[in-house]
């Protein structure tokens, strides 16, 4: 139970053991290990290409690992899994899609089943429960394609949680959100993790919006991962070891930047991989 606070009778919802993935001769994941307990909110942090999406796909069973294993609630994952809720990065929601937010949430219960959907009072009650859990009452009867990015994320979270999974995975949910919507989604997830005792693993290339609320950081670089509390991981020594290159952790106000060492050549590694994202970070700082 690496990282679980002593005395806390936390149940482990996810265990990743020495997970490696090789695709086309490239090592995408290199002996990644970490655990996640119920009610714990973890940020999966890393630049694009660090292996975050691959890791999530292995946990979901969409990619087979070349070595290592994934345990969900202490057991190997089964195919028809309602144990994992998942919010994918790319969702295709055309404005003309004839689906209301509440219909999409309902698909989280029985979208994998064949035949026409049957409505029941029980099903509707559960949908209403999820709608209020993510604060989506105002747009529950609107078409999903007409909702803003933040509203869509709330609906997708409700969709993912309606089948009462113990584990929720989100792939870059903040990528296309403005700062305020992103902050709202993060706060919502933090509340849900605690109230519903769900283990939440959220991938992001910028850790700063997450730092105030996450219990754990799983930091990825070049397919390797380091896991622990933010204080343990976001340190010059730990990250330098992970990157196998000297990096510097710099705190600017309440923001953390991870930059490459060797003084003059300052290159932002931890939260972004190009200048555009760097600018984006500055905006959030002044906000």
């Amino acid at each position, binding site marked *: 139970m690496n990282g679980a606070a002593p005395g806390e009778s936390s149940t482990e919802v996810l265990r990743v053991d020495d997970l490696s993935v090789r695709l086309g001769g490239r090592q995408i994941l290199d002996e990644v290990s970490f655990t996640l307990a119920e009610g714990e909110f973890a940020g999966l942090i890393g630049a694009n290409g660090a292996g975050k999406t691959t890791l999530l*796909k292995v946990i979901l069973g969409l990619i087979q690992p070349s070595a290592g294993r994934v345990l969900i609630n202490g057991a190997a994952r089964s195919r*028809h899994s309602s144990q*994992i809720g998942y919010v994918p990065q790319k969702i295709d929601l055309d404005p003309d899609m*004839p689906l209301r937010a509440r219909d999409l949430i309902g*698909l989280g219960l029985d979208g994998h089943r*064949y*035949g026409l959907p049957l409505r029941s009072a029980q099903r509707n009650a559960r949908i209403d429960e999820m709608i209020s859990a993510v604060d989506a009452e105002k747009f529950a*009867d609107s078409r999903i394609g*007409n909702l803003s990015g933040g509203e869509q994320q709330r609906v997708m979270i409700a969709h993912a949680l309606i089948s009462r999974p113990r584990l929720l995975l989100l792939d870059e949910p903040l990528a296309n959100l403005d700062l305020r919507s992103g902050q709202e989604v993060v706060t919502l997830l933090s509340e849900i993790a605690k109230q519903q005792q769900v283990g939440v693993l959220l991938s992001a290339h910028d850790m700063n919006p997450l730092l105030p609320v996450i219990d754990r950081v799983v930091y990825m670089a070049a397919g390797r991962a380091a896991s622990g509390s933010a204080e343990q991981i976001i340190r010059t020594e730990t990250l330098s070891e992970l990157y196998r290159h000297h990096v510097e952790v710099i705190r600017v106000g309440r923001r953390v930047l991870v930059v490459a060492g060797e003084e003059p050549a300052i290159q932002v590694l931890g939260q972004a991989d190009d200048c555009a994202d760097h600018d984006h970070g500055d905006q959030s700082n002044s906000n």
Partner: protein
Amino acid sequence: MNSVSIKSAAIFAPGFFANGPVHTALLIGSVVAVVSATVGTFTVMRGQSFAGHALSDIGTAGGAAAPLIPVPSIYGFVAVNVVAAALMDLLGVRSPRARDVATGIVLGGALGLAALFLYEDTTTTSNTGTVATVLFGSIFALQSSLIPVVAGFGVAALTITLLLYRPLLLSSISTDLAATKGVRVRLVAIAYLLALAVAVSLSALTIGAILSTALLIGPAATALRLVKRTGQALVLASGIGVAAVGLGVLLAYDSVSWTDNGQGWPVSFFIVALLFGTYVITLLVTRHQPHRNA
């Protein structure tokens, strides 16, 4: 009373309801409209309109080959479209781009065959109308013996589509999401493509191979702009399809008296014109309402 009967006589030309070919046309046309609209609603939602249109053109090869065997053209349409759908799926598994390329390749090959078969049709059979029938349909020439065949294929396509209702919706949103829920995404995609092949074949039988997309996409695209629930879209699209076919048949029947030579205008023209007009009007009416359902 008198004026009403005169008016109705003007709309329904004499003999309309007593005419055998009209009955067959209306019956087959309605079945085809419902199947096309239902399958088409998912075609539009899944962004497979290009595959749908390709299949309709591809069907030309089957429709053209049928008289050479000879078998009724519906068997030619279904056989070629089902094989083409399977090929498209095999060739274009990986990405949307691969899917488009596969569709294009199969389309090109099939049109080559269509050119050969249509040429053979005109040189070896005495029926010079075959080319026009295959390409543009002839709903009034359908034999009533085809009704059970059309009904059979129609029920098969509808059953597949309605069985896959929820998995299709889920995988339209995200195939990864559907896969993590245990949906066999690949199986669902193949089964749906087969239903699409059959629907397009039925449509080709009524309004012709190259126009059949109109019945597939038109009612569905119109309905998707007007309602916000999938079930409502299926019902509305079916209604629009049936209305367009019924009105088209009626107008074509009436049009005989519009022209001096007594030949009238082709029914496919009326059906497609009605579908197109309905879509354009819907587009204009809803164009300023981005949040029309909010």
